[in-house]
């Protein structure tokens, strides 16, 4: 096989893996949007908050230590213990459920039946608030997240591809783990929404509030549930992205990458979030390879790199023009 094609294959494969990471973030958006019609701008910040909380708990950091020290004149920062990764993850899940309850209790319960734009604005407020709280609780310095996920080149893939093509593919172990976990997460979500009472109730609430009430579904319970699940998905995304590039403010910006994914896949489709993420992941890597670096078609087009920053958005723009509901979104039909 020609070298060029092999490189392209490796690039595409890496793109798939990056796409999984985008999908993870997009999933959280879809869940909340489906169940409550709220476009949750704070999803990215929730991932940051979850990752910071996880690191903080793991390291035995005292939450709000700066505030406490300033108020009481003390000098405490650490409890002096560290929590094992699994226990810390479990505790973070508890925190995210608490956050879901608080968000519903103090914000969205008061905004029932409001216009979507008002709900959207509320999530922007929530994003800034949560970002501030996260800094206040755990400090704003860059942290490393280590829950024992394998990292670095996967030797098996490297050897196997070397034996096959005479060229070893570089695939990061972390990306493989992310793919497996995303697969499990989606399978779990599908089983939950299709086979459980709460899942059916969730779909019902997403469809019609009044009808849901009339069959005995508590809207508040479902909203807390769905924000909890979104919090859990945010935690998973936070762990993956945090392990990859450190826990810092820029983590919350991955939410912006989820936007084109959602426009591609449709705001209301879980498979759409997955496929959309993969298409964008592969698309931007291949586009960069072909036209950013001029590696294809004899280099007739060479844009000089950095196409990855805009490719996804241009693709999304195209979709907005020609297929606004996305690949898998529900087509909006109105009877006249």
């Amino acid at each position, binding site marked *: 096989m020609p070298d060029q094609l092999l490189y392209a294959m490796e690039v595409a494969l890496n793109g798939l893996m990056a796409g999984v990471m985008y999908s993870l973030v997009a999933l959280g958006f879809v869940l909340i949007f489906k169940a409550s019609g709220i476009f949750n701008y704070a999803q990215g910040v929730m991932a940051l908050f979850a990752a910071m909380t996880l690191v903080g708990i793991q390291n035995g950091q005292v939450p709000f230590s700066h505030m406490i020290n300033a108020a009481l004149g003390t000098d405490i920062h650490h409890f002096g213990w560290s929590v094992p990764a699994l226990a810390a993850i479990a505790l973070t899940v508890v925190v995210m459920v608490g956050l879901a309850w608080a968000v519903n209790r103090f914000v969205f319960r008061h905004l029932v039946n409001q216009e979507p734009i008002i709900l959207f604005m509320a999530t922007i407020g929530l994003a800034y608030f949560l970002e501030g709280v996260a800094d206040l609780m755990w400090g704003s310095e860059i942290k490393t997240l280590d829950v024992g996920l394998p990292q670095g080149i996967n030797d098996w893939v490297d050897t196997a591809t070397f034996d096959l093509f005479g060229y070893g593919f570089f695939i990061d172990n972390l990306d493989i783990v992310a793919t497996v976990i995303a697969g499990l997460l989606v399978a*779990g979500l599908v*089983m*939950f929404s299709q*086979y*459980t*009472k*709460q*899942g*059916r*109730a969730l*779909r*019902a609430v*997403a*469809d*019609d509030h*009044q*009808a*849901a*009430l*009339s*069959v*005995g*579904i*508590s*809207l508040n319970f479902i909203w807390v549930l769905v924000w909890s699940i979104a919090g859990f998905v945010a935690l998973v995304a936070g762990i993956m992205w945090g392990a990859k590039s450190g826990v810092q403010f820029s983590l919350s910006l991955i939410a912006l990458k989820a936007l084109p994914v959602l426009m591609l896949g449709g705001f209301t489709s879980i498979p759409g979030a997955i496929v959309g993420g993969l298409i964008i992941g592969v698309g931007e890597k291949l586009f960069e390879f072909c036209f950013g670096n001029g590696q294809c078609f004899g280099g007739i087009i060479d844009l000089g790199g950095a196409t990855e920053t805009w490719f996804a958005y241009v693709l999304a723009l195209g979709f907005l023009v020609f297929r606004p509901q996305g690949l898998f979104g*529900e087509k909006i*039909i109105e009877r006249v």
Partner: protein
Amino acid sequence: MNAQSQSFVTEDGRTIGPTVLDLRNITLRFGGVEAIKDISFDIREGEIRAIIGPNGAGKSSMLNVISGFYVPQEGEVWFRGKPRPAMKPYEVAQQGIARTFQNIALFEGMSVLDNVMTGRLAHMKTNILTQALWWGAAAREEEENRAAVERVIDFLEIQAIRKTPVGRLPYGLKKRVELARALAAEPSLLLLDEPMAGMNVEEKEDMSRFILDVNDEFGTTIALIEHDMGVVMDLSDRVVVMDYGRKIGDGTPDEVRGNQDVIDAYLGVAHD
């Protein structure tokens, strides 16, 4: 023993049981507007109770009070012999009061089967993990619920559209699916808000037959709002008549038909 706990036989020879739901001096206001003014009536086990009246009489508001969507400022709702505390609509539904809506409230994106299954939510008791994994008691429970739903689907003759998304169905069938969802809950009281609104004669006849059959075969107590007088007089055992938020008549169809206030409300009366 008081009169409410006794059964009696109607003029058609139908036996009507003791009181299920008793509304006592209900007053409902929206700001300065009194939608319901000091209304009392009861609904007895096994009967078909109609609420009629001109547009804006407060019939739907009354139904919304019963199903918990509105909370009256004054008066009490007694359910099964006990005063009912202020409740959320979902809590009322869990107590066994199912309803349909004037403007159809279905889950449009879900199939007919899934819609009817949501009616069974209050009957599902097993935990979430076993449900997700389709395990043991949860699998049995799902099968039982599914069987109950299939009975309702057969009964209302909507087998053919079982898998169709509700959004694609014509109006008349949607009304029937909504009835199926309410029935699947096996309610002790079924509230129907204009079940025949906007239907043609044939569809109305079908719906009337279903309502009578439901009452006959399952012994379901039904309270319904309807504008078609012919239908109301044929179906119901007793009728409450409302006008401008007041109760102006209450009794068997024949009694109500002869009531001068009711005739005035419907035909208008000369004011001099």
